[in-house]
């Protein structure tokens, strides 16, 4: 079987690649609601990375702030201003 250290480092690298793809999709998307959803996917990948790097305090801060409170505030802002990015 695979050694445990290689397995953990492999999962960390996979999460890093997932967060890179989610960041690219969030920046080049013109519908702002979908951009916020991609940013929330990237924050979930980061929260899992913090758990594997043995930082439980940071997971408990990051999950409510970056996946719950922050997309809610930006969705309020999008509802009150424009939804699509301009030409």
């Amino acid at each position: 079987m695979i050694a445990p250290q290689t397995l953990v480092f492999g999962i960390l690298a996979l999460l890093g690649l997932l967060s890179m793809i989610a960041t690219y999709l969030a920046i080049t998307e013109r519908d702002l609601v979908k951009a916020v959803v991609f940013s929330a996917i990237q924050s979930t990948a980061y929260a899992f990375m913090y758990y594997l790097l043995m930082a439980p305090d940071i997971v408990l801060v990051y999950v409510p702030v970056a996946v719950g409170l922050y997309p809610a505030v930006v969705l309020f802002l999008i509802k009150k201003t424009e939804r699509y990015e301009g030409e």
Partner: protein
Amino acid sequence: MAAWERVVIAVSMVVFVALLALAFTVGALGYRAPPPTLRDLAEVYLRTTFNSDNPLFSAMAPEAVTAIVWDYRGLDTLFETAVFFLAIIASVALMRGVSLPRKEVGPAAGMSPIVKTVTKITIGMILAVAASIAFHGHLTPGGGFQGGATAAVAPLIALVVFSVYFLEHAGVTKNRMLGLRSAGLLGVGLTAFLVLAASIVSGVQAYVLQNQPKPTAPIGMPSIVDGAIFGGTLLLFNIFEALAVAAGFTLVFLLLAIPEEEALKVTTGGEHAH
């Protein structure tokens, strides 16, 4: 941009990063990441966070990160709380003159009864978990800011499912949340001066933000009360900080939920225009 163009760009980025990491690993001449030993400063923090052999230098809390945030480097956290408070005051000042109109809403406002019933159950559970995270901050991972941020999710859901007029009717108003936040900050300030006040009364020397007895200041908070680890000023700091953070976030959501017609009346016309 068509969908297949995006897939090509994403795949090429992944291949580029993988090859760059390979080049860095092969050409790095024996450099190993991550390092196998810690720095000396980290060893000092880990050895003195709960050490009965050395009670004059120890923080007497089994959780190293909370002890660093509130005991070893408590002044940083005080200034961080002040920065957060300044941001909230600036947001309140930008929305001055704007207030929610008085409107009586019946039980038909908000979402369907299924959503309302499920929300009533989950709001209680969220507040219980947040209180547990805040109160156990000196024993397990957690603390003041974590508990406060989790507790702020409950008013957010209540705002969306029931309406903002219902919350205003139930007593969760902007001024009351400002009062709660100021009460939490007052508690944090009083706890910082607690040991100093006790030392002035009894005539020995002490410092501001002191938690345990130190070599030149022989007075401090008790570390074990009735067989349970008390944590000294860490417990009080966690409770007041959780209250202040939850009230601050609720205030921001109440300001954001005011409908746009009220705000436009203030910025572009009417008798209270800027």
